[in-house]
């Protein structure tokens, strides 16, 4: 019995350790890429925007964030076509917000502080800093289909997901739950 427990413990520790290394490597690689796009002032604006677009497509859990921002009833009452249109519009909107967020900041490096796990979601604590200041940056990441995807970014205690949820809920309430109206509002940005 003791041997079994020891072996189980050994497997569990090995599994956790491997996962820790895997997510740390993923984070280091993706944050490096993000910084490269962010600090690349040599290319044309639209070229940089395309790079952000690819970064967002590759690393963000777009569907989870997009649907997470809606009420379940709204997802149920809309047809597939409208939902797909919403997903597409949301993707463009998210890219634009990330592009704006990154373009107004200058950054030297992203330092990984620690990684916590809650309910299957990794909470990565990091700092993004230049020579004069440092900003706290948390990433909520989940492993979806063998790749890590960002569910939320929390900059200086402000969650992207929570903030957008408040905004979207308000728009949907104002329009009596019209997803078309929300799509139009997002397209305006």
């Amino acid at each position, binding site marked *: 019995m003791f041997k079994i427990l020891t072996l189980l413990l050994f497997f569990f520790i090995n599994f956790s350790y491997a996962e820790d290394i895997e997510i740390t490597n993923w984070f280091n690689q993706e944050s490096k890429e993000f910084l490269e796009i962010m600090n690349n002032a040599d290319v044309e604006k639209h070229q940089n925007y395309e790079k952000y677009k690819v970064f967002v497509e590759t690393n963000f859990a777009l569907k989870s964030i997009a649907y997470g921002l809606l009420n379940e009833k709204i997802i149920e009452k809309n047809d597939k076509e409208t939902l797909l249109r919403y997903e597409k519009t949301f993707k463009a909107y998210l890219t634009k917000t990330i592009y704006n967020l990154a373009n107004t900041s200058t950054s030297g490096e992203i330092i990984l502080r620690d990684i916590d796990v809650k309910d299957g979601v990794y909470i990565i604590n990091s700092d993004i800093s230049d020579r004069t200041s440092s900003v706290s940056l948390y990433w909520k990441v989940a492993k*979806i289909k063998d790749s890590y995807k960002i569910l939320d970014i929390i900059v200086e*205690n402000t969650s992207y997901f929570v903030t957008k949820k408040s*905004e979207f809920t308000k728009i949907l309430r104002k329009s009596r739950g019209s997803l078309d109206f929300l799509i139009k509002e997002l397209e305006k940005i």
Partner: protein
Amino acid sequence: MKNLFKVLLLQILLFISYVSFANSDEIPIESSVSYDEIYDPLEPINRAILDFNFFIDDIAIRPVIKTYKFIAPDPVEKGVSNFFSNLKEPIRVISFVFQGEFMKSINSVGRFSINTLTSLGTFDLASRIGMTENETDIGLTLAKSGVSSGPYIVVPIIGPSNFRDLSGNVVEFFVDPISNNIPNRSYVSIGSGLNSRAELDEEVDQIREVSTDKYEMIKSIYYQNRNSQIEEDFVQNLPTPKIYIE
């Protein structure tokens, strides 16, 4: 050998259950804490005041801030920011005493003494020697005593607040030993306000550019920031979206 076989079998079973779970269409991961709706009975009035604030910001405050940020080198901006932050240390000392955080209160006394004596507060030497800044105020003291936030309020010129934090600001106005003992108090207040606005300049630009509803965005940001100062494990308790297979 038999035991090892059992362990391997167990591992395989665990692996299979993990894979079948991961391949289901939706994984129900929800936050343990739901984000409460913000009490906002004064919304129509608040929205009007926010529009007024943005109007004043456009015509008067923003141009001043943009010019200041353009002219002033980063070390000067940092020095000004440190100066106004240092003036808040006495209020932090009082707040920490009422919160029962005596060590933090002593830390604030030390920070104020060191920074004032060495550079009138413009250089944060105290942080360099390990006495890092701890944010607090009377509003947070009331929150930690169990006082609820009350309705959300947008204050003309000043910006977002709530009944509890605004009450805290009024108390601070009367008990602040620094502000009450310096000449031209109003100039210091204006300077402090402008400095706060300058510190948030990029965020305000963000709100202007990418917000679908400025009012809701500002309200949400305000509450998240305040809650992060009140709650432990704030980030861990924030809601997370359900996971859909991409």
